């Protein structure tokens, strides 16, 4: 478990995480609204050599970036059912030759492969800009 004291630190942690990633890895990022899921993904993408602007895919479900590898950035916040995600063919990407970074994975938990890296971001109880961040390799 690490404590991030600023948005910048979360971003840097993202860069660190990128160093352990390899092709076909899936990183699911848990955390309430505004905890910094997109922020950490911006760091991961930077570490993976993505040059484009990284923002939450708010209208599309998936943003695709190209860095050293293909990067798929998902945001399932607006998805209400598993069938909606399946209809859109999201699952194919989990087995594609790229790296998947997922916001709101809990919305489609059942569709996610077991083998993945979970990142859990929580607000700190005392400080507004602090976060507790856990990184757990599963299994």
């Amino acid at each position, binding site marked *: 478990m690490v404590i991030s004291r600023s948005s910048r630190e979360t*971003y840097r942690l993202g860069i660190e995480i990128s160093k352990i990633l390899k092709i076909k890895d899936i990183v699911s990022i848990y955390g309430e609204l505004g905890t910094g899921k997109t922020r950490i993904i*911006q760091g991961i993408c930077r570490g993976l050599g993505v040059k484009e*602007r990284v923002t939450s895919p708010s*209208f599309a479900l*998936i*943003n695709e*970036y*190209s860095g050293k590898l293909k990067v798929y950035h998902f945001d399932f916040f607006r998805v209400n059912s598993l069938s909606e995600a399946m209809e859109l*063919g999201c699952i194919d990407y989990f087995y594609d030759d790229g790296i998947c970074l997922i916001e709101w994975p809990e919305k489609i938990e059942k569709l996610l492969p077991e083998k993945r890296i979970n990142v859990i971001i929580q607000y700190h109880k005392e400080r507004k800009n602090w976060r507790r961040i856990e990184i757990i390799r599963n299994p």
Partner: protein
Amino acid sequence: MEKDRNNKEPLILGLETSYRICGVSLTRGEKLIAELNIDAYRSHTEKLLNLIIDLLRYAEMELKMVDLIAVSIGPGSYTGLRVGLSTAKGLAFSLNRPIVGVRTHLVLAYPFRNYARWLCSVIPSKSGEIYRVYFEFRNGKCKKQEGMGAIKLEEFYSELKKKKPAICGIVDGLDLNYLENFVGCQFLSKKGSFPESYYVSVLGYEKYLAGDFSDIITLEPFYIKDFPDRK
């Protein structure tokens, strides 16, 4: 008029000023009530408010009946976007209504969402580069987007050869003959298209349904080149 008031669907005012064509539209949900477009060259400032006033008059509606303001946020003309955004914010603030910003690439692609699955929406930049975004639609829904950024024309042509999308958007400066015959990409509107305010309203409606409102204070034009990390 009474009947209209009882309708649950929101009345949406859409503003499109990112390009030379200044456009305003009024929809009930996604149903068109009125739309006006004018080639404003550089005078969006004068044109926009007058267009809104005329639009409401043609539609026999009043400003206070509007439930939602939708505005195109670019990329596009710097002054046009400033005028559109400040007008939208002024209206949203004084009427106390929500505002939603929609990206112009999507406004340009939306008319084709049911006809083409794999689309490239283009907007030329002043420096001669192309801002392009690829969209994958499925059943009219936007599934994936990629390639958010500016690219040189030659690189763009070779990228298109690989990706083979249908093309839509503002094609000033693109060689359409070359695109169709040598690159092999179909252009979806021969006349060249422009961002239509009707689709700003439609996208505003979709965001409204999703509860995805913009923040009136922080909403700003979308310039592809400012990376958030550079701050």
